[in-house]
């Protein structure tokens, strides 16, 4: 299993550096497409961004080189990435439904799912009810805090 080609030697440092380089290129292309950096001897709106984009390339390449020189290899641990991914997914859904079904309902669901995710004790059925109670309390507390004390209006739900 000791393949020596470059691809095998990519570790997380280099991977992130590569992603940065790709993102930077997208940025740069967008910048050049928007407006030329120098027009008629005058600096355009894309001059500064392009300059810093170039600087980013230099920095990212340094990291990439350092990453390749490192001995460690990418260890893709699926279990480790599962929880954060779940959080991201849940939060994304939350954003989508937030305005549609209103603050209270969506937040209760959000908090509930997060609590279940962070749950660390075993003993299922009895705990479930407690979680629901907690979520409702937290959501209502925050609601009161924002709505009454700070005067912020939270959405009531367009679907209703």
């Amino acid at each position: 299993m000791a393949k020596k080609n470059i691809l095998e030697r990519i570790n997380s440092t280099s991977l992130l550096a590569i992603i940065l380089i790709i993102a930077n290129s997208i940025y740069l292309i967008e910048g050049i497409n928007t407006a030329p950096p120098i027009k008629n001897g005058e600096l355009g709106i894309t001059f500064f961004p392009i300059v810093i984009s170039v600087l980013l390339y230099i920095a990212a390449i340094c990291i990439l080189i350092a990453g390749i020189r490192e001995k460690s290899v990418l260890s893709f641990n699926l279990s480790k990435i599962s929880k954060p991914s779940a959080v991201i997914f849940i939060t994304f859904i939350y954003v989508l439904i937030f305005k549609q079904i209103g603050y209270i309902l969506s937040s209760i669901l959000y908090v509930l799912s997060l609590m279940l995710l962070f749950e660390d004790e075993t003993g299922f059925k009895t705990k479930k009810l407690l979680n629901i109670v907690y979520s409702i309390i937290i959501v209502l507390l925050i609601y009161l805090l924002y709505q009454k004390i700070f005067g912020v209006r939270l959405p009531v739900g367009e679907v209703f």
Partner: protein
Amino acid sequence: MQGFQTLFIPGVLIYVFLGFFIGTFFGAIPGLTATLAIALLLPVTYSMDIIKALVMCMGIYMAGMYAGSITAITINIPGAPAAIMTAIEGNKMMQRGQGAKALGQAAFASIIGGTIGSILLMIVAPFAVKLALLVKTPGKFSLILFAFVVVILVQRKSIAKGAVATILGIMITTIGIDIMQPARRFTFGIDFLVQGIDLMPLIIGTFAISELLIQSEKSCNEYQLVNKEMLNQKIRRKDFLPSIKEIKEIGLMIYIKSALIGYFVGVLPGAGGSMAAFISYAEAMRSSKNPDKFGTGTLEGIAAAESANNAVCGGALVPMLTFGIPGDAVSAVVLSVLIINGLQPGPRLMTTQFHLVAPMFAALFLSALIILPLTLYMLGPYFIKIVSINRKILYSSIALVAMVGGYVSTYSTFQMLMTLITGIIAYFLRKQNYPTVSLLLGFILGPMIEKYFRRGLYISEGNPLIFLTEWDSIVFLILIVVFYYFMAVRRPIDIKEAIEKIDLNNLK
């Protein structure tokens, strides 16, 4: 002086206390920081009287710096990075049964450091303002450039990563509408992006959401072990006060010297509590009568570190208020509080609107000198219980407050989404040890540096040499070279040796 008058209006005073409690809470729990606390409160400050908001932030600031030492000493997990040295020395003492002494020392040192820091702040501020008035546009550009260079070089370990984080921060702020002309930039054809990404979602995402994601990875087992240990500690109220003999042994000079170090490190952009604690710790070790004792649990080490990190609070506010350049992460977020509420830091703020800012100084002083000892005495033994809060409730609440906060800034779910996305980006960056302070400074100072750059060129009618001919700009450019020399070329070797020594002593 007028600040004190404003402060003692009961309505305002409550907020300092409130801020202090919040700061203690966030500072004590590992993973939560004072920066996070203020970041979460950002949306709230919108609808709050600005003086109350600022004063509360000061309470949080001072408390956060101190509170990290609590868990650092008791369970060897620093509540905040600034308490790492305290953890090394303090925990060893804890294991010997002298935990209370360590806690008391930490508190005492924090009180002195914080007080000195805030006094220095009050003294230095007027001079700094006069200085700030002398700096014009080309100088402002070079000043911010200097700030960026400092922030990046101060990272020592990976300058490239610091640079990347800073530049990323700047880049993100270029999305939207150009700062000087009505033209859209970097919208990638997505209409939503025309509004750009608001500062609040950026900050909340960077600190709150990324923390959430990092925490979700950790197994609950670690946390529970920690909890069990915590509940076994019993500490009495009296134990918190260090004896006069101990103080004499350490010598008043250590406190004062560390406070000064802390203050000046605070003034440097981007360098904050942890750097201050570290430098003063190394310095204390170097000039100590028994340097070998460091690493085995000495009060000297704790005194140096804690005095320094609380002095940072005063120091970091100087450049932040007079130039708009934050001295550390917390002051950076406080800067956002000012910006979001429409206040522009700088000479004008300090002169015509000083009445808004003066209570801040008073609050800082008060937190250090009075509130700290007060809460310590009354609630000391209960501090430890803070950490055993139920993790799932804690983090789901934080998530809720964070996401709602992201919405509240512009009443737009798009910005909510941006909060999430910024959080994801920050999460990956943090996992790879990219400094978040640099990212934060990139967000805040990015638009400014571009603005001064272009304005400078506009004034000189396109001649880039203006940055080399105007003397205010030259001053900072020279400072950049000087700083680069000291940091990158002439590496502080003693500090490196110090780290290695401590690591050897601290083998678990």
